[in-house]
């Protein structure tokens, strides 16, 4: 700072030096001083030659006022100067969109994100980081604002496709994930089985003829029974049970096939309803904090458990729980693992879970299971020593495609 000041005092109208001094003050969070020199930079620079430097100085003025807080009218003013100077650059539109987001002016937030997205590709980057990572930050703003102006489908579509369309920074992976988790995936699609579909069923196991309808979202309960040839009196560990009936993977097993087992969920209400209405037990716990070895020993679970369901959110959480299961002590004949690839902003946990389960000796039977043709959200696994190889062969369907669960289960 001292050297810079000496240099500055010899040439105080030098726009570059004013900018450098301003940045030095901003780094010290001395925003008032930074504003002085950013503005001097802007006022004393040569235009149009130095327009990008001036544009950046004006953006930085706005950032300084943002950091000081409670000066949004000023913050907006400097951004409008910047837009007026170079309307074809996106950064000012992004900062305006952020400002309107804070003010909950969603129409404006959306509009400036859209304008920013229509700017030509940047060929010259600013000297200092203002947080504008790439055009995806504008996509993100558009998605956020779209939600609040009621464009729910558009908002979800942007969030869910961002990880595939952009190479997101870790920060934006987290932000996208947070938003997907917050707004959810929207109205759930279900593919229920009923007796009318019996003839088309891929593997008709003993007892299927008595099933009027199932309860899982996409045939998970029917898959378990198929893989175990309609096993009766089996045992399950259900992590993330949610509602005890609707979209539940173990109710059919308990009700029609006499299974025992234990369910775990973090939602107190769901657990209360479950406990009042079903015979099998459900405990209210944070599944990420359980010592499963001690837990399973405590409830007297058998060493070979017929079914493990893992369905928590977000994907990182489900994966974390998977890795805390004592696979060296317990074996699971069938596993349905919800990796939620289609809403996993990091796009990491599907591959990680596959590597992990393979390393534990499990075999993938069907991958990229989806309620439709595009939303890869689960993989279904078996332990080869605990299932009939003929059934395994008949149910096997592993490739790169997304599989609509109903088409797969009725493919026989």
């Amino acid at each position, binding site marked *: 700072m001292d050297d810079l000041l000496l240099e500055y005092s010899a040439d105080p109208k030098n726009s570059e030096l004013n900018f450098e001094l301003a940045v030095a003050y901003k780094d010290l969070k001395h925003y008032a001083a930074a504003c002085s020199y950013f503005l001097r930079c802007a*006022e004393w620079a040569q235009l149009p030659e130095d327009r990008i430097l001036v544009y950046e100085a004006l953006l930085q003025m706005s950032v300084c006022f943002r950091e000081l807080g409670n000066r949004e009218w*000023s913050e907006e003013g400097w951004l409008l100067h910047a837009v007026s100077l170079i309307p074809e650059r996106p950064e000012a539109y992004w900062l305006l969109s952020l400002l309107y987001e804070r003010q909950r002016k969603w129409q404006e937030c959306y509009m400036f994100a859209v304008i920013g997205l229509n700017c030509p590709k940047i060929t010259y980057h600013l000297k200092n980081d203002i947080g504008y990572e790439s055009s995806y930050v504008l996509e993100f703003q558009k998605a956020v604002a779209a939600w609040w102006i009621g464009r729910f489908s558009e908002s979800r579509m942007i969030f869910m496709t961002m990880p595939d369309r952009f190479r997101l920074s870790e920060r934006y992976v987290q932000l996208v994930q947070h938003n997907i988790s917050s707004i959810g995936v929207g109205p759930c699609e279900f593919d229920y089985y009923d007796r009318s579909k019996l003839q088309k069923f891929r593997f008709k196991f003993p007892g299927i003829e008595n099933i009027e309808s199932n309860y899982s979202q996409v045939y998970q309960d029917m898959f378990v029974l198929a893989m175990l040839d309609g096993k009766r009196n089996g045992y399950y560990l259900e992590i993330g049970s949610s509602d005890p009936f609707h979209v539940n993977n173990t109710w059919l097993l308990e009700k029609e096939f006499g299974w025992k087992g234990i369910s775990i969920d973090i939602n107190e209400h769901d657990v209360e309803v479950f406990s009042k209405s079903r015979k099998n037990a459900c405990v209210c716990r944070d599944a990420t904090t359980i010592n499963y070895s001690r837990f399973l020993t405590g409830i007297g679970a058998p060493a070979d458990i017929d079914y493990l369901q893992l369905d928590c959110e977000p994907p990182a959480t489900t994966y974390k729980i998977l890795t805390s299961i004592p696979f060296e002590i317990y074996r699971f004949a069938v596993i349905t693992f919800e990796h939620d690839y289609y809403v996993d902003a990091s796009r990491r946990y599907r591959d990680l879970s596959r590597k992990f389960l393979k390393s534990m000796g499990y075999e993938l039977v069907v991958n990229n299971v989806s309620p439709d043709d595009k939303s890869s959200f689960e993989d279904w696994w078996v332990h080869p020593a605990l299932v009939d190889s003929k059934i395994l062969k008949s149910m096997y369907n592993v490739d790169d495609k997304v599989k609509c669960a109903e088409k797969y289960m009725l493919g026989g």
Partner: protein
Amino acid sequence: MIVPHEMAHGTGQMNPSILVDGDKIAVNIRNVGYVLVHSENEQRFPSRWGPLTYTHPENDHTLRTFNFYMELDSNYNPIRIDPVDTSKLDVPPLWEFIGLEDARLVRWDGRLYMSGVRRDTTTNGVGRMELSEIIVTDDKVREVSRLRIESTNPQSYCEKNWMPILDMPYHYVKWSNPTEVVKVDFEKKAAVTVFTAQKALSGFRDFRGSSQVLPFGNHRIALVHEVDLFNNELGQKDAYYYHRFLVWDKDWNIVAMTDDFNFMTERVGFSCGLAIVNDKILMPFGHQDNSSYLLEIPKIVLEGLIHG
């Protein structure tokens, strides 16, 4: 000179004063809650309110002043920075300018004082100079007494920028052109005029007080400021500040002055202090009300004013 963000919260640090106090170099920096925005040159980028704007928080337009006491080592690096604790004497403010503004440091009769203007004691912002004694201990700087000095003209609305005369306890140069010297009458809590020059120098803007008045050989010296206040074509206010040194003889005749100047080509700046250390003159100044600096000038440069 920077008061860290944790203490000053990133807003303006301005109008510094300085005092060589024994073996210490003491500084006072005024911290305000606004950011001054001043467009220069062609004024291509004025704020939304005009070229000269005090940017307060949008829900708080009070002008609050906090003072920070700093000590510098011989290389002018800060060795301590403390907020001046005024809590013992503060009362609920009645006007929107709150706190002691533009305080000059002075030691008189062994006591260390800050002397500046306060405008928060009446509902219409009447400003009067105050003399606040401060005590500096190892871990704290506290205001322990406060005297509000009534003006020689009780009708005046705002008295400010009186320049304490370092070698004349409780005396100020109240006005520089024509020079008026006042003394504090502690019993009456008022200033009494002890000298008024008969003639003003003509052809100058008003000379307003800036630094303290320092003995300078057989003379006295001080920094004063001048202001051009004007409006642009939209009627929005603007201002240019200028500074100059004045030299008085022992009879308070102005015998020399510099040309007017500014700091680092800024249009808005201010100083509340001046000090002499050996062969150097130390002059702190505030830049656009936002940041503070310390300028070192060889003493011989100013001596040339008198003898040259």
